[in-house]
């Protein structure tokens, strides 16, 4: 039962991601990306990774969508002629993608179905998340702080005063 549920969630997530890539409207793309993040959040919750799920939902589905929508609203000024030409090009651009994907997915699924099953070791062996995050992976925290500072500088550039 869990396998089927996860499969359905994965299929919906992949569809949302393909929509995010191929939609002409960037605003719709950003919303589709947020929906895909929500699907990934549900997958993480089912697979007993609640901390990862909370971060995915609040940051990827929330903050990144806000950043994208702000960017789109700050840069949305296109002439009608440019818009028309882009739409014409856009339809042609993504036509081969679905053919390539169909071939690759069919070939991979066939190849993997021929392989022997992997033996599962159990997804909860008693490791404590807090201990891993604060003790085992302490250096990661420093790296993350540096990344957050980089993002803060990014925000200052983002909302810089225009002369």
């Amino acid at each position, binding site marked *: 039962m869990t*396998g089927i549920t996860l499969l359905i969630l994965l299929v919906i*997530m992949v569809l949302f991601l393909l929509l995010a890539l191929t939609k002409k409207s960037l605003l719709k793309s950003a919303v589709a990306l947020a929906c895909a993040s929500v699907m990934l959040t549900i997958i993480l919750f089912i*697979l007993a990774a609640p901390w990862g799920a909370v971060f995915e939902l609040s940051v990827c589905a929330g903050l990144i969508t806000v950043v994208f929508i702000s*960017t789109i609203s700050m840069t949305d000024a296109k002439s009608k002629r440019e818009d028309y030409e882009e739409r014409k090009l856009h339809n042609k651009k993504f036509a081969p993608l679905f053919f390539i994907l169909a071939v*690759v997915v069919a070939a991979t*699924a066939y190849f993997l179905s021929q392989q022997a099953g992997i033996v599962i070791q159990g997804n909860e062996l008693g490791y404590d998340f807090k201990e891993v995050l604060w003790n085992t992976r302490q250096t990661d925290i420093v790296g993350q702080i540096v990344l957050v500072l980089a993002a803060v500088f990014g925000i200052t550039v983002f909302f810089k005063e225009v002369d």
Partner: protein
Amino acid sequence: MNTADFNLFTVSVLVAALTIVIAAVYTLIRTNNLIRVIIAVEVMMKAVTLLLILAGLVAGNMALIQSFIITIIVCEVAVAIVAAGIAVNCYRKNGSLNISALEKLKG
């Protein structure tokens, strides 16, 4: 999760991750829009997150993988914000989000 469910999940995650990466790389190659480039990178990060989850399940250590997922998410945000800042400033300078406009920059 029993073994049959796990095998189904393994196959579907591998296929999904491959699909997502191919679609994102195709978009990166074909598009000229800076915002769509950022979206494609974010989409690829989702494939990485999926593969990390699978790695955690196979190794049986979801706690360690959760810390990696959090690190990946922080990287994702930093990349998105810095790239969005570059895109906005490129638009202010050139009046267009076309990647080829970046060639006009000095330096």
